[in-house]
């Protein structure tokens, strides 16, 4: 039964990967290609979509896989819906159950000296991790490979980043991140479409 197989495959992926979306990708693509559900080329397309749509990356990929496999199996809308339920549900359950357990335990242990000691150093570590995530995103956004392998600089990206960052530092309390994202989508279209004449 392919739907049960989908469910348990994603349950396993959710249960055994630590570190979220990109850590899950190798496991997802391996499983899905091995079972013959999708081709490696389809996976690459999916990743492009998952990156350019809102929402948690791994949930996007799981939805995509569930829908495609479900549709192919039953050929109807409901097959796709059931497929999504299986893949997303499979990812959902381990996260939900484990965190509820951890939450209950943490209520008890947060007051313990040992846990407190651990968090004294873990907090600066997390700040450092977020900073490193910024660097990696900045490198991917601002630098690209031009034709011939030389590095090209995305000046539009750098300038718009600086504008957004300045606005956040100066008026952070008044500006909502959602607003910044919507405006930025518009500015991107305006710049590349109208100013550079891409339309």
């Amino acid at each position, binding site marked *: 039964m392919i739907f049960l197989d989908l469910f348990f495959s994603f349950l396993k992926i959710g249960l055994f990967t630590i570190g979220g979306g990109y850590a899950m990708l190798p496991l997802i693509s391996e499983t899905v290609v091995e079972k013959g559900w999708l081709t490696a080329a389809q996976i690459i397309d999916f990743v492009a979509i*998952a990156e350019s749509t809102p*929402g948690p990356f791994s949930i996007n990929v799981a939805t995509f896989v569930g829908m495609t496999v479900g549709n192919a199996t039953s050929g109807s809308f409901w097959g796709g819906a059931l497929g999504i339920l299986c893949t997303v549900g499979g990812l959902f359950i381990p996260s939900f159950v484990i965190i509820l357990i951890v939450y209950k335990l943490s209520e008890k242990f947060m007051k313990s000296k040992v846990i407190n000691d651990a968090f004294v150093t873990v907090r*600066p570590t997390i700040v450092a991790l977020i900073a490193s995530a910024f660097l990696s995103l900045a490198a991917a956004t601002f630098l690209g490979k031009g034709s011939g392998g030389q590095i090209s600089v995305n000046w539009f990206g750098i300038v718009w980043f600086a504008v957004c960052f300045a606005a956040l530092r100066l008026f952070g309390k008044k500006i909502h991140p959602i607003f910044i*994202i919507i405006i*930025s*989508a518009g500015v991107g279209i305006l710049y590349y479409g109208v100013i550079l004449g891409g339309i």
Partner: protein
Amino acid sequence: MKNKIKTFFTLFWTFFKIGLFTFGGGYAMIALIEKEVCEKKGWITNKEMLDLVAIAESTPGVIALNTATFVGAKIGGFWGALAASVAVVIPSVIIISVIGTVYERFAVNKYVQWAFMGIRAAVAALILNAVFKMYKSVDKSPLAYIVMAASFVLAVLSVFDVIPIDIVYIILASAIFGIIWGYFKRKRELKPVNGEAPAPKDEEGEK
């Protein structure tokens, strides 16, 4: 009872928005959660946010889901956890089901690509801003600075594939270091030196 239902719906709506406007994974989400959950609602402090990210990162599963479940549980118990975690998933499911049928055209659509050039720059700014905000809630002790610097170097080397270490191990190593440090610090404080009172409780003991 009425309050409980209200909390349930507030959590649902808050995390629905977070799911809808998170581009680019877990860290981008931190900026949104910080705004909605810490600043606007005051449900948790920035410090608790850091603890929560550490827990979400080092437990199995989807980070966004882990974070949503944890915040939900803290504010509304089991039903709160359910509301937040389901809400953060729903936008994904709806949007992908719609786009999935036309996906060959979507990813190469030039308007989508242009919009994303802008969005990516904005997300970078949001994440850097989150770094500054989170930094404020960290202890300003030499210990914290040393750990932050060491973690940063390791994380950058890992992110750019220079050394093959998983981010989770950096968190784990940091936690173990903190526990050992705390153990020796308490031991030292308990032992009066030359019959004097225990040293004052500050962080200046290390080089």
